């Protein structure tokens, strides 16, 4: 049985990098006593795959990994058992069964992600930045300099910003994600700071990921469904 595990990563845990989070969950699954499937050979490893690695310094309530289980377990029990072995700042939000095939491949499915971005005190992009978001998004294109190994080239990222709006004190972003069109919130904010005529410092941002989506649309039409909703509760 293949299950998709959704988790939150908050507080001090934002300083733990992606590879270490993978190691953390390998151990956590063992501590929780879930009967995971392993690869063959002398050093067997747990069959698990993570969707959309999160950068160090970013918190999230929408992280995912898929795990192959040999013995079925109910969603409720799996969530409870995992949460009993979590540390402060890590919480398992749901465990759902995903079908084999396209919907069951968290990694390759990722198409978009939601973020909430706020600013550290005194590090906002000038005064009245709230009012500039609309005009920022009304530009015909949003060009940024993308550095590759060999040279720099200008790229229009506007097609990858699906939504950008004020939500309370924060900016809500729905951005393209995945292996091809991946757009980091830092990149969008850098362009926004430039638009506001302000110097950009990565440290000024407090970024929180809210959700990660797959795209079930066909022929260029976008139909985003959260990775969680691609799975079903196990009774």
């Amino acid at each position, binding site marked *: 049985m293949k299950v998709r595990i959704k988790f939150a990563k908050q507080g*001090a845990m934002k*300083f733990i990098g992606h590879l270490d989070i993978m190691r953390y969950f390998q*151990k956590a699954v063992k501590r929780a006593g879930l009967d995971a499937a392993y690869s063959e050979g002398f050093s067997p490893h747990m069959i698990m795959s993570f969707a959309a690695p999160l950068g160090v310094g970013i918190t999230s309530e929408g992280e995912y990994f898929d795990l192959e289980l040999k013995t079925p377990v109910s969603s409720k029990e799996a969530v409870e058992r995992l949460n009993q072995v979590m540390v402060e700042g890590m919480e398992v939000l749901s465990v759902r069964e995903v079908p084999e095939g396209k919907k069951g491949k968290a990694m390759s499915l990722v198409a978009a992600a939601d973020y909430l971005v706020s600013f550290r005190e005194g590090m906002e992009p000038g005064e009245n930045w709230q009012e500039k978001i609309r005009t920022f998004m009304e530009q015909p294109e949003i060009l940024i300099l993308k550095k590759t190994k060999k040279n720099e080239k200008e790229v229009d990222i506007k097609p990858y910003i699906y939504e950008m709006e004020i939500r309370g004190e924060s900016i809500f972003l729905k951005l393209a994600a995945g292996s091809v069109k991946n757009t980091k919130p830092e990149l969008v904010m850098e362009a926004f700071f430039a638009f506001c005529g302000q110097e950009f410092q990565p440290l000024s941002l407090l970024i929180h990921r809210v959700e990660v989506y797959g795209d079930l649309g066909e022929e260029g039409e976008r139909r985003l469904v959260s990775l969680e909703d691609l799975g079903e509760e196990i009774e």
Partner: protein
Amino acid sequence: MRKLALNDEILLNIEKPARYIGNEVNSVMKDKDQVDIRFAMCFPDVYEIGMSHLGIQILYDMFNQREDTWCERVYSPWPDLDKIMRGEKLPLFALESQDPIKDFDFLGITIQYEMCYTNILQVLDLSQIPLRAADRTEEHPFVMGGGPCSYNPEPLAPFFDMFYIGEGETVFNDLLDAYKDWKKAGKSRKEFLEMAAEIPGIYVPAFYDVEYHEDGTIKAFTPNNPHAKEKIEKQVVMDVTHTYYPRKPVVPFIKATQDRVVLEIQRGCIRGCRFCQAGMLYRPTRERDLKFLKDTARALMESTGHEEISLSSLSSSDYSQLPELIDYLIEECSARKVNISLPSLRIDAFSLDVMSKVQDIKKSSLTFAPEAGSQRLRDVINKGLTEEVILDGASKAFQGGWTRVKLYFMLGLPTETEEDMKGIAHLAEEIAKKYYEIPKDQRHGRCQIVVSTSFFVPKPFTPFQWAGMFRKEDYLDKAKVVKEEIRAQLNQKSIKYNYHEADVTVLEGILARGDRKVADVLEAAYKKGAVFDSWSEYFRYDLWMEAFEELGIDPEFYTLRERSLEEIFPWDFISIGVTKNFLKREWEKAMKGEITPNCRQQCSGCGAGAYKGGVCVEGKN
């Protein structure tokens, strides 16, 4: 949620912020208002090294079982953070509470190797605690040291309020109880040290005076306080089964050096190699009960979720119930998908069979530690490993499919001649020959033999504590002899040679057998910028030599001299059970190339029998 001691700006700009945030699985949180004693336990090196140390995990668990005590951890900040903390005057903090160390009751520092001494000063300095015990007041924590290097605490004497000589499981509770009484009574700092000095195994350096002869050797070492003991007795746990062992060790987020369950199967070693300090310090050999080990192994795998388990001891092959333990682990670990790692096994038919079950032969290598290149020199050091046994083991391993062999040797051992050095190359060649004796169609390409040599450093409480060392250039010449001789062998293309750095060896030698005068040099070198000396990218030999020069202290007094049998050593006030007379006998036998049987073959009357336990009473109950 806890407030971290370091802000986001710092944590996002340094390497591996996970070193400093605590919060790991099984780390212990308590309410600081509900405890009487706050103890900071320190390993003075980077987090990944410190977290791999079993001793701290044992004491951390033992202290935290006390409701009145909260034990937390602290490690050396890496140079990137060190610089920021100095710049911003941020005090060093404990991982759990993130509170400054300077507000704790105790700072306990485990001293595992000489090259971490400058890091001890770094930890004190960053904690904003005066480096010297004499400058501390009632506001400061008591700084105490323990671990193998505290068996010659003298180069560190002025920096510590006290040392704990021996195994931590024994009198720590008495010390903590005494501390509570003292705190309630509101007495002076000195009065607590006097109470501590009465506890067996506790050494308070300020309560002793040292007088020197004109030649720099010690004339007298005498207590200057009525509470101080003449001799400090090593503390030993005689029942290593019914004692403390953490069932829920802390599991780091980042990969530590030991990223695995560590199961200590026994303490001590029966072998009596004459260069080996651990082999003497931890006498008598004491085995943990098999049932206890099985049960503990299972509990540890469950509580940590580690993917690997490793047995820990000085010589695992000597554990009397090893086959039963390994059978159990193979079964249990295969069900749990946990790998087994088996270091320090003697290569024989049994261990080859076990290793073929738990490792991928194609990817693993076999390790032999002949330590010396000739049988004569192996007899001098009492390493009971013969060429015949090595070649037979290698031969069996090659037939079993292994192609890689690692060989460990020491250069600069007492009585060593050029023939002994060349013997290293010859032994490697003989092993290579064994491989190429196998018909071509049955072997897997070329074999790879990696020869590594370190330079021997004489340590206190060993039969070689009287031995002289060499200059840096002499060590390098010795390595050159080996290198050239290897190049002259027929199968030289299958033999790779590595050797250890010589300047670190010289300094390690000075610190290992140093006296109180070395403390000034240590402080001066630290103030010049020496820190992380065990990391070759940070080691600055020149700073140390400048410090010796400026203080007018001759480093060669500590290294080159072969000591006379009458000399009073800086560590002579400590009793480890093994007597100085036994060590003298062993030193004299070494000079004659005579071997001494191991503890199970025949008792040699080393003195550890006084503890009336372990191997000394085996078969006598």
